[in-house]
């Protein structure tokens, strides 16, 4: 187990950059290619790398199963909640134009931002949940 020093060191170097790249893809998604789906998968991939190199139990200490199972519905809630908030500001479901109370451009900006956060949370946690579900099998 201790012979994989190179892998461990490289993973430690890589993982922060994977996360930062994921966030870049997420936040840049408003202006160009990118968005919650891609960013979610990239961030989940960072967790996978950690789990593969350091073991599943280490990964589950860092990202507990309970948190993952909480985040899956949470992301959907953020997405659907944004839509519900559109009702409050007197527009159709998921209509962002009035989200900033008047300024349509600002409203679209906020709408896309919030919805993509929801997508990010759900996609990242779903990918991790799938990984945990399969990786945890056959050990009991």
């Amino acid at each position: 187990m201790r012979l994989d020093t190179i892998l461990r060191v490289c993973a430690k170097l890589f993982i922060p950059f994977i996360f930062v790249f994921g966030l870049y893809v997420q936040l840049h998604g408003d202006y160009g290619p990118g968005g919650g789906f891609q960013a979610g998968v990239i961030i989940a991939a960072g967790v996978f790398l950690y789990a593969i190199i350091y073991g599943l139990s280490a990964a589950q200490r860092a990202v507990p199963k309970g948190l993952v199972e909480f985040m899956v519905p949470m992301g959907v809630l953020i997405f659907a909640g944004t839509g519900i908030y559109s009702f409050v500001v007197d527009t159709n479901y998921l209509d962002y134009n009035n989200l900033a109370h008047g300024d349509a451009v600002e409203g679209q900006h906020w709408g896309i931002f919030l919805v993509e956060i929801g997508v990010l949370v759900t996609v990242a946690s779903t990918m991790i949940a799938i990984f945990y579900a399969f990786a945890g099998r056959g050990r009991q």
Partner: protein
Amino acid sequence: MSIVNEIIANYNYWITIFLMLSGLYIVVAKSNMIKTLLGLAVFQTSVYLLYLSPGKILGGTPPILEKGIEVYSNPLPHVLILTAIVVGVATLALGLALVVRINEAYGTIEEDEITAIVDREDHAE
């Protein structure tokens, strides 16, 4: 020669058809459940190509608003296929999860053997 040219010009559709048929063949012919699911994935992938092909406009740029750009590819198929990919991933994950559970319950993932066991259980019921 015009037929040959036409075949070459529509190569993307030929690839689509090839993927579609090979995916369908794997689903029908393979007894191993994981192979069946992979065939299903190939079959779904062919659809992605079917949608993306007409969305590309020759000489068009990526669909991002910039000054001076008139011709751009149709973004709609990309959005649709992004959704379809997610659906495909979900299906594959659920299918594989079921196969894991079936393997734990039956000790095999060969559909022939499982069908035989299921038939026996049906009669013994």
